[in-house]
């Protein structure tokens, strides 16, 4: 043994110190260093997985929201179109109604005017008739008075009267 190089023969002192040093470093590293590193990496891995999951969910949610908003937009457009259509219809109705009303009013006015005219006409006719009657009466009176004189003269007189009366009135 003693002829061999010292590196080939185990040495108790070195063994003792190596063991002590190794136990110290093993204790410290196993307690404070390696678990901290591996658990931190594990946690980070968990965090990344979770983040990926969340991102996927958010994407899905976003896609859902997009579809929803598209549907909403489409619905809104349809509603708009319908509202426009309805408004047009309502407008048309109002115009038609107004027109009808105006027509009715016009007709009513016309009727009133016609009635008025008729009344006026009636009144005028009545007046004319009255005047005619009065004239007739006057003529008749004059005729009656002339009749009392001569036949021929009577006739001429009547005719003269009538003509005269006609121009007179």
């Amino acid at each position, binding site marked *: 043994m*003693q002829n*061999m*190089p*010292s*590196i*080939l*023969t*185990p*040495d*108790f*002192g*070195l*063994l*003792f*110190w*190596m*063991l002590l*040093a*190794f136990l*110290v*470093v*093993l204790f*410290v*590293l*196993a307690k*404070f*260093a*390696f*678990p*901290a*590193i*591996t658990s*931190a*990496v594990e*946690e*980070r891995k*968990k*965090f990344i997985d979770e983040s990926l999951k969340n991102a996927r969910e958010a994407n899905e949610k976003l896609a859902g929201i997009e579809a929803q908003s598209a549907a909403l937009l489409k619905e809104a457009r349809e509603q708009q179109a319908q509202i426009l259509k309805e408004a047009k219809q309502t407008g048309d109705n109002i115009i038609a109604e107004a027109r009808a009303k105006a027509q009715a009013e016009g007709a009513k006015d016309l009727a009133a005017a016609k009635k008025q005219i008729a009344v006026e006409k009636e009144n005028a006719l009545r007046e004319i008739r009255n005047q005619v009657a009065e004239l007739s009466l006057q003529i008749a009176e004059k005729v009656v008075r002339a009749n009392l004189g001569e036949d021929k003269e009577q006739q001429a007189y009547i005719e003269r009267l009538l003509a005269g009366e006609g121009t007179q009135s």
Partner: protein
Amino acid sequence: MRKTFVNPRPYLAMLLLGLLTLAGTSRVAAAEDKEMVDVKEVVLGHMSDAYDWHITTWGGHHISIPLPVIVRSQKDGAWHMFSSARFGHHSDEVYEGFYIDPNRQGKVYEQGFDERPWDLSITKDVVQIWINILILLAVFLGCARWYKKRKPQDGAPGGFVGMMEVLVLAINDDVIKASIGEKHYRRYAPYLLTVFFFLLVTNLMGLVPIFPGGANVTGNITITFLFATITFLFINVFGNREYWKEIFWPDVPVWMKCPAPIMPVIELFGIFTKPFALMVRLFANMLAGHAIILSLTCIIFITFQVNALVGTSLSAVSFVMILFMDLLELLVAFIQAYVFTMLSAVFIGMSLPEHHK
């Protein structure tokens, strides 16, 4: 977002630069004061444990850091603790009855006793081990602090912490978890991670030529013996019933295990060969690397003894080869730490077989 992949090149380049600038300063120093270079002594001397940390020799003077010697006297059983400088400048003096015997591995012996005294000296390797452990603690507690101050949503670390994270996860997930299995690996992970990083730091520090590095720790069989023994204990203490059944009553034809227990004997032998292989593999690889680099360095001095021309030309060749070996050893430093950890994990995984049938 911060980049999560860390480019290791700047760190390697830094390391290399350090190695290159320091290479050749101290390794060669010990040879300077002798007329003829004794390659064997230089190489073995640099790889062996010592009671002081030799830095360089300047003008015939050894410049070294004395380290404490702690020995128990066999006369009265008392512990003696003194500086290794007490052994004198050439380590040939006797102090309190203790002396260094150069013929018996350069260890401390007590006058009048043939046996080695109990020797718990803080040797060069012990100091190197504690330096490595301080580096390990600084690195990993620093990294752990980074994580403690942050929440998972703060993102992944970059730079040095990111590099360590990649390394820790590579060992933890791809070596330990993959070899032992999801179910049991947590019990062994701290040990195997610590072994990997201790061996890595120790191997790398062994390549640094001068003080805080350079001691050949993993190329010393005591160290690899200890780690192999711990792995051996992990395998056999926590091995399950199936594991022991496969050793003593393996799934082979009956005549192979009864009456002559051929297979059980082989399996029983295998229990010891596995950690033995672990021990020798790491030891021999690290030792060989150191020995080759030191030998190539010695070529420079041997050839200069011939004449200056030969010395200069071969030194250039030697320098290129040392450069190559240093780079190779950088790779080996990682590979051997990785292989030791991986095989330990594989052996532990084999001690926990699932009941299959």
